[in-house]
């Protein structure tokens, strides 16, 4: 599953550590989610989407295999 977290984070000029602090998770977890190695829980997925002002389906796309996450 691809996601747009890295893209959104860079647009807002945030570091992984700053995003992690805002979401209440570790920096390592942000790295894992961005690289697609870890799928976040539903509450965390909503928190990420809400943080960037997007919906969950805009943030995470199971069919978007070609997108650059």
């Amino acid at each position, binding site marked *: 599953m691809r996601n747009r977290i890295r893209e959104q984070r860079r647009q807002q000029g945030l570091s992984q550590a700053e995003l992690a602090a805002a979401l209440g*998770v*570790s920096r*390592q*977890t942000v790295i*894992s989610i961005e690289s697609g190695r870890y799928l*976040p829980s539903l509450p965390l997925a909503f928190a990420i989407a809400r943080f960037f002002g997007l919906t969950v389906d805009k943030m995470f796309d199971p069919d978007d295999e070609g997108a650059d996450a």
Partner: protein
Amino acid sequence: MMTFIPPRLRKPGIYALAGLVFSAAWLVQGGRLWWVSILALIGTVAGTVRMYRVAGTDTDEGDRVGSRADERQQLVSLRSRALACNLTAITSFIGLTAAIAVKGTWGWPFLVTLLITGYGYLFGLGTYTIAEEGTPDDADAECQARHPVSS
């Protein structure tokens, strides 16, 4: 009680307590090997200091030891513990089977361990099961009648 202890101190504290008890056990038995308690105490102090230092690092291990693991780190920890439990159960089964085969009297610890892991698993199923089994409500019943599950 744990909430009164700073997160970074919790696991090192538990480790230190366990080490002190282990060390005291060697001292209390009073035999020729009483000096092992000194070694255990030194090992406990060294291990506690190491854990406290690791707990302050910005790593997965540091977050786990520092009792601030997030959902991914907790999941990794849970899977590791499940693997350890599986290995314990398999090893206990092999040990018990070997003891039976050679008519050894040393098989009972394997039996106890196997029973604890087995009943622990069943206890966990009973405790952590969230979905209640029961009669479906009307909407579910209609849905199941229209789309019966084949398996």
